[in-house]
């Protein structure tokens, strides 16, 4: 009897454990006199003072309305957003990466801001790359927030010690300088230029530098371009460049580890990444400067990925007018100037300055604006291709062909 009941309890536990795989959800209702804003943690660590002052201004213009800013991380904010679309309690304003916009605009997740566009400062001069990412079917859904390009952050002392008098003006020159840097720094694992193996932002820069591309639309259908001769030349150049300059893991991405951690440990003479990487290079802050990554033709710059963020108003928001007012304050000329002072690229051409970040943005590329592009990113098709190429598991041609076919089939999904 006793034994039987133990078995019965165990059986019940088994059933429960097996069924526990199902999902759960929670809902929350927002109150009328407040708006919820989802910003990425970049704002939390980089410009919390701007967020605070904008909220203050907004609240003095709208007495009784409180602003609830919730910081999100890039890794899971879309999953969270999806959950709020289903269950309610979502934000009134959401920051979206510019490569994330299209899928949501196509699904009708955002309010149409076309008629309000004229009310945003400098909206006639928005950076075309960002403005394009917030437009779908001729309507505006996203307000450009800020952009960032990728630059080289380097150790002035190590470059000097290696006898490098002039900063490299071509990738070939960079490879030659890398040899000098290696001769001076014999420690194993030292990278003259730290590039993570599957950092596709850098690799695609090479593809565009050689005149290639990722995908293009031919009479309504997407066609993969990575296996084209020009793209293959770019990928081959990337492989050779990586092998000469970087000792990073061939299969890791650009956040594991953070390149600035490797740099701060003295394991790299330079690194590629957003210009704000200079924030975190202690103890080498005094010996750190930045320049624009050169292209393969001497005197040109490497085409850089123009990353950036848009602000959008979800259709589920019940305070759309207030949300638009908040975005107006947050993207005003004075706000953008503050963002610029923090090392970002402001959202409009008339505000552009001449920092290294802004010069790097002069030659830039962007991902295909396809509804399913975000699936290509999340599916790690490009990263997987780079890992295959760098580890030698597949030839450049084989890996590029398979990635290209893969991308076309993902982008052409209904």
């Amino acid at each position, binding site marked *: 009897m006793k*034994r*039987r009941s133990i078995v019965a309890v165990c059986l019940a536990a*088994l059933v429960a454990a097996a069924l526990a795989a*199902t999902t759960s959800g929670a809902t929350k209702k927002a109150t009328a006199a407040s708006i919820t804003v989802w910003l990425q943690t970049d704002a939390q660590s980089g410009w919390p003072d701007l967020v605070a002052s904008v909220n203050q201004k907004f609240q003095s213009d709208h007495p009784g309305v409180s602003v609830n800013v919730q910081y999100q991380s890039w890794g899971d904010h879309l999953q969270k957003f999806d959950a709020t679309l289903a269950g309610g309690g979502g934000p009134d304003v959401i920051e979206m990466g510019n490569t994330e916009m299209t899928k949501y605009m196509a699904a009708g997740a955002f309010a149409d801001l076309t008629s309000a566009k004229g009310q945003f400062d400098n909206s006639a001069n928005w950076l075309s790359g960002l403005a394009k990412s917030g437009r779908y079917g001729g309507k505006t859904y996203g307000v450009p927030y800020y952009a960032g390009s990728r630059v080289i952050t380097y150790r002035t002392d190590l470059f000097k010690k290696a006898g490098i008098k002039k900063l490299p003006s071509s990738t070939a020159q960079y490879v030659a300088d890398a040899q000098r840097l290696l001769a001076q720094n014999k420690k194993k694992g030292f990278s003259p230029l730290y590039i993570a193996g599957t950092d596709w932002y850098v690799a695609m820069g090479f593809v565009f530098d050689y005149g290639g591309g990722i995908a293009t639309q031919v009479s309504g259908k997407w066609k993969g371009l990575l296996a084209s001769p020009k793209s293959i030349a770019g990928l081959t150049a990337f492989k050779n460049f990586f092998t000469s300059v970087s000792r990073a893991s061939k299969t*890791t991405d650009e956040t594991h580890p953070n390149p600035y951690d*490797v740099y701060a440990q003295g394991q790299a003479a330079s690194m590629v990444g957003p210009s704000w990487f200079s924030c975190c290079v202690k103890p080498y802050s005094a010996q750190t400067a930045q320049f624009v990554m050169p292209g393969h033709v001497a005197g040109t710059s490497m085409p850089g990925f123009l990353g950036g963020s848009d602000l959008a108003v979800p259709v589920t928001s019940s305070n759309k007018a207030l949300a638009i007012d908040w975005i107006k304050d947050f993207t005003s000329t004075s706000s953008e100037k503050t963002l610029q002072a923090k090392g970002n690229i402001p959202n409009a051409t008339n505000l552009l300055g001449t920092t290294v970040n802004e010069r790097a943005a002069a030659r830039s590329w962007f991902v295909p604006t396809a509804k399913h592009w975000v699936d290509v990113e999340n599916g790690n098709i490009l990263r997987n291709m780079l890992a295959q190429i760098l580890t030698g598991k597949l030839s450049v041609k084989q890996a590029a062909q398979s990635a290209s076919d893969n991308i076309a089939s993902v982008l052409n999904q209904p």
Partner: protein
Amino acid sequence: MADGGSTAAAAGTLLGTSRRRRSAAARLGRGAVPYALIAPVVLTIALILGYPLYFLVRLSLQRYGLFELIRHQGVDIGLANYRSVLHDQIFWHTLLRTVVFTAANVGLTMVLGMLIALLLARVSGPVRILLSSGLVLVWSMPVVVAVQVWAWMTSYENGVVNYVLTELHVGDYTQHEWYGSTFSQLSMVTLLIVWGALPFVAITLYAGLAQVPNDLLEAAAVDGAAGWRVFRDITLPILRPILLILTSLSIIWDFGVFTQPYLLIGQSKITPGNFLMSIYLFEDGYFKSDYGRGATISLLMLVIVGVLSVVYVRRMVRIGVET
């Protein structure tokens, strides 16, 4: 059961009803009380599992993507999701990989757990306390923390594993890549899972070993049996119910394991080439916002786990009936 009947009879007496009606009430009570007793449990399970399960089945019969999510309205498409998943090459490859992965994990966990339990039974008191405290410490480690520590230990740049192996002259492990191929990625995950699962299995089996009557073992020794023979013919049969429960639970856990592989391998290295079922479900359902398909995959997983563990559950039921 006897307890329930007498309680009902006592209640009848207290109410002072007639003998005939009382016996009828007693009979009715005798039949109804067990059901009344399990009713709260059945009701709770029906509420917290039944409704989500019903919803999951409904979702699996709909097209339910981002577009539908925003409108809170799916489109009924019959069995199209099932057809599309079952015709997906990735599904079958992932299933095969997951079954092999589960077999390796469960096998290693059970064998090593048994060995540690036997060791626990043999060692002296203080050593046993030391060993079991170590096991409990492993057990108490939250999964996410454990993954982080393992990731650091096996880090390409500064991992202590690479350092120690190099210092011990096992070879040059400077910047050794532990997550370079699917096989090595899943091997690292297996190591982590088995490490985390051992305490529960070892301690439970050790408790089971304590139930093996000493006189039986002594009798076997007198008859000249020793070592492996005693283990096979006496210890193992007595432990059988516990082994069955542990194996079934391990199959269920390891088949659906998500946290360890997803965090240790890392999202940026997840591709269809190293999917496990739960990751396949997550990538297709959540990342691609195809919730109908996600529901379909999770229901198929439920069926597969059921099939995989049916042998064990049946045996367990049979043991229950026999005794």
